[in-house]
């Protein structure tokens, strides 16, 4: 199984737009939406049938029992995450380290502490299926942290039912932190979607540096390249200097917004400029990844 993740550093450069089109074009594949903070792939693949939906339990969270608590303030003093203030636990700040429970000095007659680590769902995971194709996704409960662990779970779920596909396509999240690191770990190929702007270039360099820690082979796709040709040239120069191949330049195309709003990948509108370019990109990517059954 070969895996490719689509990343960009900066948000809104067109990761999902490109991902859903590649998913549509590829055969013999499975796919996952690892942007658990703002998952959008499902808005395009609505007709998949949910075959497993489960609450996701990350690390346990602190729960305080006021009937046992003597208000000594020890937990509040030791918590490094400001998750306990004026004797009240703010579960969204709790990182699940367990320091409060460990150092809580009081117990009731059954030996239970006044503050205890207990299960708390931090999101929901879903495995969906259509015509033998697997689609794994999840959403993080609003305000929660630790989405890296949830990303790892989404990737694991993708392989839960079958693993004989040739390809796995993973839509990643913006940024360079925990969720992105979790989506890059152990992945052979990465498609960087770059936008020709000062922000797009700055962020592309940071995500490329992040990917280097994982020995992932990167390719660049410049999206809306004709919105700023000077910045496109700048991306090309940086790519050359860093030895990254640019495998496509997608023109700005108003039809992309139209297709998104219709809930279809742009490649379903075959005569559009963006669709023609994405078809080319897919052919090059399949070749570079040595995919044979495409």
């Amino acid at each position: 199984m070969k895996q490719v993740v689509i990343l960009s550093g900066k948000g809104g450069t067109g990761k999902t737009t490109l991902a859903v089109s590649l998913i549509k074009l590829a055969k013999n594949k499975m796919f996952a939406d690892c942007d658990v903070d703002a998952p959008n792939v499902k808005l395009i693949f609505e007709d998949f049938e949910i075959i497993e939906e489960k609450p996701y339990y990350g690390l346990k969270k602190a729960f305080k029992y006021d009937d046992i608590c003597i208000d000594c303030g020890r937990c509040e003093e030791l918590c490094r995450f400001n998750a306990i203030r004026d004797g009240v636990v703010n579960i969204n700040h709790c990182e699940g380290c367990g320091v409060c429970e460990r150092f809580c000095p009081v117990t009731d007659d059954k030996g239970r502490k006044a503050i205890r680590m207990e299960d708390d769902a931090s999101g929901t995971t879903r495995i969906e299926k259509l015509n033998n194709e697997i689609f794994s996704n999840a959403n993080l409960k609003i305000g929660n942290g630790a989405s890296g662990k949830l990303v790892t779970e989404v990737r694991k779920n993708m392989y839960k039912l079958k693993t004989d596909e040739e390809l796995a396509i993973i839509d990643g999240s913006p940024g360079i932190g925990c969720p992105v690191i979790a989506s890059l770990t152990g992945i052979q190929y990465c498609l960087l979607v770059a936008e020709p702007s000062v922000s797009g270039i700055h962020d592309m360099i940071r995500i490329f540096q992040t990917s280097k820690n994982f020995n992932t082979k990167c390719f660049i796709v410049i999206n809306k390249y004709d919105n700023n040709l000077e910045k496109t040239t700048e991306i090309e120069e940086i790519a050359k200097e860093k030895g990254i191949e640019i495998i496509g330049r997608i023109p700005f195309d108003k039809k992309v917004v139209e297709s998104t709003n219709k809930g279809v990948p742009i490649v379903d509108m075959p005569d559009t400029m963006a669709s023609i370019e994405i078809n080319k990109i897919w052919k090059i990517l399949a070749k570079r990844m040595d995919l044979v059954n495409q």
Partner: protein
Amino acid sequence: MKISVLSGKGGTGKTFLSVNLAQVAKDSVYIDCDVEEPNGNLFLKVPNPKIDMVDVLVPVVDQDKCNGCKECVEFCQFNALAYVGGELKIFNELCHSCGGCTLLCPQKALKEVERNIGKVESGFSNEIKVKSGELNIGEATGVPIIEKLLEDMDSHKNNIVDCPPGSSCQVMESIKGSDYCLLVIEPTKFGIHNINLVYQLVKLFDIPYGAVINKDMGDSKVAEEFCKKNNINLLDKIPYNEEIGKLNSNGYIVAKENEEFRKIFENILGKIQEEVQQ
């Protein structure tokens, strides 16, 4: 006053709105909390910024004192400690700096040292005070940097907080204590889906909020209906405009370059200030 600018989805124009609002506001402070990919200072350039390192605490072990009881290994929820080959090993990248291992070690073989994860840069871009955080490449969480960025905020000034994308704890951390939350909506199916997540987050706080539709191509009906249905005050629609796009992609602040564009942001800021004062 503290105005937080957020969107859920990336690339909707949070930084665009934030730097331009900072440009038109008097006595303004721009704070970039998108520490994974900070872009604000590409627009609000700060000559010779002051740099403050942001460090977290991680344990180090005195191998002579460690007797291999492994209590710390069993306690650590993040698998940052392991006892291999007769020696305690510490994996800094996995450590969440909770301090538990050091506190509980029966041999007192662990102590904490500082480890750098990023920095806060501050200074002035003309009259605008600029503070931006930057997480080091390869680090997992920028929350300590966001905390540092938001400490000792001067509430008499107009603080504009450029939030990270998403709806996670980092966003929550960024909007805490805000006087107003500005939701930037991209009028697409994706944009509306994601703004809804952020809207659910904002509702948890008792903070007034309103929205701006960005890159309006004359087809923002669904976004407008979303605002109406949820009783979200729609402050303005910023049209999709090639010149705005060009200026912005080249790192210019459009409110500074063009009088007509400046009025857009003055209008939005005026409406926000009015609502906060009520």
